[in-house]
């Protein structure tokens, strides 16, 4: 199916917002730099708002959204609820932050909220009609993306603020997130290779006589060595491996982090965009011949 860039950008920003929020909750639990907390919270809120606005550009009649959302089984409704809950959690976090040190319960709340929101977003694309999406590995990828993009964003904020006590931790989060992205993508490629979709043999659509038959077999091959290889390997190498390497290079070093953090964030975002685009292009329907 066609790549839906609005939804891709929305889910990317959802991962950033959740990753930064959960990451700063973790930093609060670890007793790391309090100086970073407010800017990080602002970035998390900003990412949530930007993502939310971009998602509206996907709607053909966005003005009708205000009198409609109500079907709780809908992924979009659940995402909207997720955004509202995240917003409320960010406000609560801000209130306790204004009072001084972030208490442990608020840190835990931020981690749970961030994880929960990403899982909700991933769940909206779990559709049996799209076998390539209908796997819990989608959740795993989104969580990995949340860790690497959130970690790299925190890393960059720490580098800008020269919050030295946070640099190493955020670099490590980025490194671990990058490894998680690599592992999740390899697991996904194995899943795609094992997919078995309904086949009808030869067929012909008289309304579109020059259209080639849909190749529903070999989706894994498409990812690994076919037309989608650039997306897949780009996401794995750039968005996973290189981001992880950058994090590992600063695993124990708190100096000269800015360039590494900025590069890691760019890699994480580029990889996130690439694999999401690949997911749309591989997302043929269960009956793909219409």
């Amino acid at each position, binding site marked *: 199916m066609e790549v839906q860039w609005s939804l891709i950008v929305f889910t990317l920003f959802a991962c950033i917002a959740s990753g930064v929020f959960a990451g700063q909750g973790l930093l609060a639990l670890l007793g790391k730099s309090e100086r970073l907390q407010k800017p990080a919270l602002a970035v998390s809120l900003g990412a949530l708002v930007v993502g939310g606005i971009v998602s509206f550009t996907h709607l*053909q009649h966005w003005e009708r959204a205000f009198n409609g959302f109500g079907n709780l089984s*809908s992924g979009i409704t659940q995402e909207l609820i997720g955004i509202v809950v995240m917003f409320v959690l960010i406000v609560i976090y801000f209130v306790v932050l204004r009072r001084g040190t972030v208490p442990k319960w608020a840190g835990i709340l931020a981690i749970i909220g961030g994880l929960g929101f990403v899982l909700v977003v991933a769940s909206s694309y779990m559709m049996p*009609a799209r076998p390539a999406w209908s796997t819990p590995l989608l959740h795993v990828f989104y969580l990995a993306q949340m860790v690497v993009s959130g970690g790299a964003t925190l890393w960059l904020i720490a580098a800008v603020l020269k919050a030295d006590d946070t640099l190493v931790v955020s670099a490590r989060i980025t490194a671990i997130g990058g490894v998680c992205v690599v592992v999740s993508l390899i697991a996904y490629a194995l899943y795609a290779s094992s997919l078995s979709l309904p086949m009808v043999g030869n067929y012909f659509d008289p309304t579109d006589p020059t259209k080639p038959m849909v190749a529903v077999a070999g989706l894994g091959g498409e990812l690994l060595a076919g037309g989608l290889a650039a997306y897949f390997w780009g996401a794995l190498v750039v968005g996973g491996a290189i981001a992880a390497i950058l994090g590992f290079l600063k695993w124990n070093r708190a100096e000269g982090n800015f360039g590494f953090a900025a590069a890691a964030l760019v890699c994480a975002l580029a990889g996130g965009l690439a694999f999401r685009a690949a997911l749309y292009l591989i997302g043929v329907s269960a009956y793909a011949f219409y």
Partner: protein
Amino acid sequence: MTQYAIVTDLDRCVGCLACSVACKMVNSVPIGQFWNKTLRIGPNPKNEGDNWPDVELYYLTVQCQHCEKPQCVEVCPTGASQKLADGTVQIDKQKCIGCQFCVMACPYNVRYLNEDERVVEKCTLCEQLIADGGLPQCVTQCGGRARYFGDIDDPASEVSTLLAAEDPATVHSLPDVGNLPTFKYILRNMKWRG
């Protein structure tokens, strides 16, 4: 419960496309879009390894299957896609926000975004006609008399009697991913390939 559906006897279908054309005419389906398509499945070997002339083909009419558990209804955030009391799945265009999640959630790809109205459309089973006791236009126009319309949940209906008279092995549905398609296809003496 009522469940309106279409049963198609594929042995009678000659692939004339009259149903596809009639559907476009009566529902003003935009250019490039189809609420009802006639696919040619085959020619495929009768048995593995067979070559021509040991091949077979059939025509398969595909449209919204007005599923028992429609995934499109489940994912619709505003309730624009809904299952009515007559079993048909309809779209309230006034409620549709054009998010197209229903398009993604349909296993048969039979939903389209109407670029002019910016809402999603699909086969309505000609609700404007069946509400008046008529037949869907694709059924009316079928030259081979391959298509039958009625309440598949009513044992006395024409479609139910037709199905009851068939060997169950000859009655098929499109692939089911939990949506329970209600349309049935009858194919005798040929291998059903979906």
